[in-house]
């Protein structure tokens, strides 16, 4: 349906090709979160892999910082329509986490859990194979608290609500269990290139 009088402002071609449908480019780094930024004491921070309620492996901050590190640079896409190009992150890939824990993923699904009680579900296949990391640095610096520091999940090929801020662990689940936003009408997968914003998209 053509909107009377709307001409729009198209991004230049190289940018346009990097923008998933319905997205626009921002130079800022907007902040979206449910509530206040939690205060996290690194001395008490832990990151834990669980299967259901059973802990599989847990790291302190110092132990986590000693794990193999990977850098990733690329584009991120928020379901609220903004995309940001060439973001630079550093952290520990999910492959390296599993290897350090000495395990294979026990199930095909998991919920990422945050220190603010946020949860989001991601299939393991969307995390392994160098597709995701637990990031601890952004643009060469520790991640600012408003952007999810000290550690956040980074799953850049899915809408950014899947990249849980202040992540405290990954909980493997038998089936694909909806997380916070997924329970509230947002898509279970969230692929920006298929514009999977909401249930049924």
């Amino acid at each position, binding site marked *: 349906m053509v909107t009377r009088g709307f001409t729009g402002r198209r991004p230049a071609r190289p940018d346009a090709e990097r923008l998933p449908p319905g997205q626009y480019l921002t130079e800022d780094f907007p902040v979206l979160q*449910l509530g206040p930024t939690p205060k996290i004491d690194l001395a008490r921070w832990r990151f834990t892999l669980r299967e259901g309620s059973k802990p599989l492996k847990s790291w302190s901050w110092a132990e986590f910082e000693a794990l193999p590190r990977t850098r990733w640079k690329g584009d991120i896409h928020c379901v609220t329509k903004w995309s940001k190009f060439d973001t630079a992150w550093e952290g520990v890939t999910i492959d390296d986490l599993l290897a350090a824990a000495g395990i294979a993923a026990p199930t095909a699904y998991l919920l990422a859990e945050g220190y603010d009680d946020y949860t989001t579900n991601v299939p393991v296949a969307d995390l392994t194979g160098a597709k995701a990391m637990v990031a601890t640095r952004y643009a060469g610096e520790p991640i600012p608290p408003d952007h999810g520091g000290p550690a956040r999940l980074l799953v850049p090929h899915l809408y950014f609500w899947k990249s849980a801020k202040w992540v405290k662990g990954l909980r493997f689940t038998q089936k694909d269990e909806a997380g916070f*936003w997924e329970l*509230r009408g947002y898509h279970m997968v969230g692929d920006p290139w298929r514009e999977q914003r909401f249930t049924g998209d």
Partner: protein
Amino acid sequence: MALTWQEARITAAAPETARVRRLTLAVGWSRPFRAGQHVDVRLTAPDGYQAQRSYSIASSPMQAETIDLLIERLDDGEVSGFFSDVAEPGDAIELRGPIGGAFVWDSGAGGPLLLVGGGSGVVPLLSMLRHRAEAAPGVPALLLYSARTRGEVIARDELMRRDAEEPEFRLRLALTRETGGRRIDADTIGEALAALGTPAHAFVCGANPFVSAIADLLVEAGLPPRTIRTERFGG
């Protein structure tokens, strides 16, 4: 339930402030929205190019068949410029919603209810206040609203009237660029909490730095973080 795009006709348009325009849209929703929710709008150019944005709903969920959006003209705004300068009653746009299940207040949730808005961040809070007045006027509520000038206060007459007429509603304006004006600080928050009582729910909406500062102040004032919901715009 899938959220499908629907054609929504603009039934009325009027200036709200010098920078904010109120648009009323006819929607054919089968169920009411919840105060605090937003809609996505989609505009299409003749060559098929599309732009989408999200806007909070300002009207009460009890307003039947139409919703009000209050759209602030942004410098260089691709979509807000269209709504400010081009859109007129009779035009149709594409819309889907209602969207969002976290920044919402239902009358059954009770109070006290603390609302803190910066600039056009007051819009979803207006929906909550309007809903409260109709459905739960006994719930104590306080709106702490930061705007640059008196003229930029959205729904000023209505808010002043509610403050005067509704026994359980209090308005606190913080006008940052008026003589004698001030920003919201720890003292302002302390005064608001003393007047309202400990809020069961706090909602904070505005630009990112505003929301970060207010959310931190509320936590420092002793509010449990999980009682505070935030919504930010910008970017």
